[in-house]
């Protein structure tokens, strides 16, 4: 069964780019564009991984992370912060709150992202599935 990734991203460009790279390698990518919608969606679909931006409409990614890690239902879900805001304050805060990884979008090579995530989730490959909005 395909691994589910919830991608919390309000920038359509980044969403199109990274979701194309991930679905091509068989991940199921579910998308929400507002921070305030993220937590409900995480509870609903119980993804294997959350890719979480920081600057989001409605609620910041750090607040989403805090909510996610404080809930028994969701605290074991892995979270990679995927942002272009690399200030020490944000990185430290995200790691304190329980983020598993902090990636800068501009450093990520999209064609290499699926392998990075596969090794992060402790797997090798996936089978192709669709992108859900």
């Amino acid at each position, binding site marked *: 069964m395909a691994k589910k990734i919830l991608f919390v991203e309000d*920038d*359509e*460009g*980044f969403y*199109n*780019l*990274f979701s*194309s*790279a991930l*679905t*091509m390698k068989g991940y199921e990518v579910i998308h929400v564009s507002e*921070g*305030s919608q993220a937590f409900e969606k995480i509870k609903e679909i119980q993804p294997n991984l959350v890719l979480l931006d920081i*600057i*989001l*409409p*409605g*609620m*910041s990614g750090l607040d989403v992370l805090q909510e996610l890690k404080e809930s028994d239902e969701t605290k074991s879900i892995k979270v990679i912060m995927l942002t*272009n*805001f690399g*200030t020490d304050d944000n990185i430290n805060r995200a790691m304190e709150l329980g983020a598993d990884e902090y990636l800068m*979008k*501009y450093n*990520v*090579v*999209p*064609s290499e992202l699926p392998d990075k995530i596969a090794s992060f989730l402790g797997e090798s490959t996936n089978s192709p599935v669709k992108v859900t909005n």
Partner: protein
Amino acid sequence: MEDFVLILLVFETLFLVGVVVVLLTKSRKLSRLFGDFNKLQTHEVEQEKVQREREDFLAMLVHELRSPLSVIRGSADLIIKEADNLSRQDIEKLLAQIRTSSTGLLGIVNDLLDVSKIEAGKFEVRKVKSNINKLLQEESEYFKTLALEKKITLSTDLQADLPEFLFDPERLKQVLNNLISNSIKFTPESGVIKLESKRLDGAMRISVSDSGAGIPDDLKPKLFHKFVQLHDSKNTAKGTGLGLVIAKGIVEAHGGQIWVEDAIPHGAKFCFTLPFFDE
């Protein structure tokens, strides 16, 4: 003996007066010194604030430039390396994204150039005789769909029988785009936005009012300055924050003024004037 006591008293009084005079002089000097010190401290605090605002602006600008650039580079990289594994639809989507991101990037660069010209006093507009109500109507139609996505009602109240006059329609469109899109951004769902035009003596007044949270009084005077950015209730603002700086530059290049006031019963009302010039 009495004379001696008297002389002693006189000397003692003179001595005390002298001490008081010296103390008063010193205290004036000290108070001047403290005054200077306080001024210096206030100046330093202001300088630090300006420096912080500059740093925040720079960080925001870097972010705004990096994002479209990362998307362009990443999309091109993915197409080059994975063309065989990507569907035709994915490739078309990525190419369209490259175009959108490039356009966005160009917009930021143009904004920076505009601000630089405004600051250097070299900003110019190209006035042509046009109909302002037609422009306002077009803008209203354009933004109605976007407003509807948030269930916001966008209405117009335009002054009838306005003469055509000289202004730069493209630049005025830029001002209106900025004001209306800000209003949509800061107005909660099911709110209202009103676009008005009113004839004054020798000028037009155009306003965009919304039913959002309004602008705090302390922010109003700074709003049209560089490095100042509006944040929504969750403090999640995006963009360079240069839109209002440019709007001010454009309005002033037309000889008008721009300001913000409170809307009634609540919200923000951005107004600007455009003087009538026939030739």
